């Protein structure tokens, strides 16, 4: 922070007046940073402190609150929390892997710029423009058993009525499918940008050396896409943890908790059961895990990345 402050302040201080205002000069960088620091403090750090404090405050019914780890004990003892964690892991794996693979395939297929690929790119990227809540409301009709669009077309090939959102074995899969549909076009844009940055002469050289398309992809394109991949992976992980609008609209975590995820669990504890202590504890745990995860993933990915210089 101090280093950053110096950096910001340096070009602004003219040497001639430095002497005269030396007392003030020390303050200038801090004054310049003060507005943003104020907002950071008020809207980021203060809530963090409050959540940590809330997670350590044990409130009984009609009793005076006291400090303790009881909220964490209750959190880890709650099977709904375990279910939510497992669901989140399935959801993360189920959305990240297919949407990244699909996005990369789309990007490779649509890398050449023609009128047709331009139109197709727009089509693939279109879902990202639809807010998740609106997308979920649309899918409520698509998934309607028997009468919905999906069942209507599936019936033509002989697939019987399916309760996409009401069958505990299918509900999470349906939620995953919406997310993949929604996010894959967005990630494709990153891959398109990444692909455009790969020098053509490298690929040409490989082609002259007799490398086939598969070899060129695995030995040249994919390694050079490393930074893009690392970035998209982190974005996708964050999305998987922080977007639950469709769960709220479509299933409310049901049937029988099969689509409940960590963020939804937190919402439920805080807003339905008014158990702020447990909600705060779950928030601290999930943010902690997310933080550790992004540190580890960024570091380990960086090690394997070929940055161009």
């Amino acid at each position: 922070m101090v280093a950053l402050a110096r950096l910001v302040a340096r070009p602004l201080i003219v040497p001639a007046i430095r002497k005269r205002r030396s007392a003030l000069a020390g303050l200038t960088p801090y004054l310049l940073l003060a507005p943003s620091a104020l907002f950071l403090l008020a809207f980021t750090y203060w809530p963090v402190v409050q959540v940590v404090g809330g997670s350590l405050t044990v409130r009984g019914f009609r009793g005076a609150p006291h400090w303790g780890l009881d909220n964490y004990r209750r959190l880890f003892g709650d099977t709904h929390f375990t279910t939510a964690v497992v669901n989140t892991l399935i959801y993360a794996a189920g959305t990240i892997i297919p949407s990244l693979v699909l996005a990369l395939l789309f990007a490779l297929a649509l890398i050449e710029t023609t009128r047709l690929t331009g139109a197709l790119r727009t089509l693939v990227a279109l879902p990202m423009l639809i807010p998740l809540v609106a997308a979920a409301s649309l899918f409520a009709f698509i998934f309607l058993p028997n009468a919905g669009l999906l069942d209507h077309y599936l019936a033509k090939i002989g697939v019987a009525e399916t309760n996409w959102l009401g069958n505990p074995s299918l509900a999470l899969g349906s939620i995953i499918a919406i997310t993949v549909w929604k996010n894959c076009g967005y990630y494709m844009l990153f891959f398109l940008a990444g692909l455009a940055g790969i020098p053509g002469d490298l690929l040409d050289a490989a082609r002259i050396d007799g490398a086939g398309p598969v070899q060129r992809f695995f030995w040249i394109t994919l390694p050079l896409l490393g930074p893009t991949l690392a970035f998209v992976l982190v974005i996708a992980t964050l999305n998987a943890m922080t977007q639950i609008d469709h769960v709220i609209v479509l299933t409310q975590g049901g049937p029988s908790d099969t689509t409940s995820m960590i963020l939804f669990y937190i919402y439920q504890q805080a807003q339905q059961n008014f158990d702020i202590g447990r909600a705060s504890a779950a928030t601290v745990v999930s943010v902690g895990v997310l933080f550790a995860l992004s540190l580890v993933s960024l570091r380990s990915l960086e090690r394997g990345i070929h940055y161009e210089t």
Partner: protein
Amino acid sequence: MRLFLVAALAACLTAGSAHAATEIDLFFPVPVQGKLANEMQRLVEVFNKDHTAIHVTPVYSGSYDDTNLKTHAAIQAGKPPAAVIMSANFVREYVINDEIVQLDRLIEKDGLTEAAFMDQFWPALRLNATEQGHAYGVPFHNSTPLLYYSVDAFKDAGLDPEHPPVTWQDWLTAAKKLAKHDGATTTRWGLMMPGTYDYCGWITSGLAMSNGGQFYNPGYGGEVYYTQPSTIGAVRFLDTLVHKAKAMPEGVTDANAVTTAFFQGRTGMMILSTGSLSFVRDNMKTPYRVAFLPRNLDNAVPIGGASLILPKGNSPEREAAAWTLIKWLTSPEISGGWSRFTGYFAPRIAAYELPEMKAFIAAHPDAKVALDQLAYARGWFSTYNVVGVRKALEDGVQAVLSGKATPEAAMAKAQLEADALMRPYVEQTALKLPE
């Protein structure tokens, strides 16, 4: 110059507030359909025109659960709304948490006693509006679960539409006859019901009550009876309908899917709120009838719907203005008009004495059946931590509907969870003993 402007502005403001009407806000949920929100807007405009000393701003606050959440948040933030249309079974929690104005004082100021005031409403509705002999809510619109059935489907299955099922035995037989299977696909279900959160618990409690049960302790917010024979029997009956009789679809169906199937003739019967009567009447293209929820032992249904409440923490002026609004909204005329518009019952008995209401009931026999069922209605289950306690049951019932658990195991788990959620309250009340 600037000083002058400020002074002028201040003068304007003080002059304005001297004659200004008391500003109050009303939080209202729309649980059924959007057109109710427009009607509420219109009603409030009429009220504002007739009461120049009060200005009401209606605030649409989402579903019943959302309204509860927003009201809680507003109270915590120190800016409670003046009045709220609150899901009737949430009232008890506000009493437990001491966040609601006891209405006795306001009622007595009008020259009535609490009992005389409550006598103006149907008996079944008084349970959720009072707590230990004190009034906390004024019933605004109410409903019960109702059996809707298609006349064409009944005829097609060789059933008599004039004699809908009365007992669970008739019901199961009818459902089996109505269900039409074509190989692996089902072209018509016997019965459908919404199994999503909120609806699922309400209907299950109705079945437990029709099976002789209480389901919850109406007098105390710390007990539910999920593992009692009456509830186990009700859940087993649902299991039979789905898995043995194959008359009801497996898994959880939401209310939209249920009504769509009913309108398309893909289910012979459905259980839905009486609050949806107008919606069904407007959208069903073939003839349909309604009947009481069938019984195994007793005719019984829980009430649903909402009451008007006054959250604590408002100024006496705002409280008085809100009380005026509440009395106006629950007057026989307004109550009756809202009932005809929505399909909900008018909670005021006197509403049904009005000529337009008599004409309406005569013209709509389905509304008459719904009204007659009110004689058998009971309280809506309400406990400490009611949403979580309800969800514990619903997770269990959904597991049974999906074939993932036996009724006994699912209910045992639900009871454990519900008890854990109510424990803080129980420990401070029923288990807090003199030492």
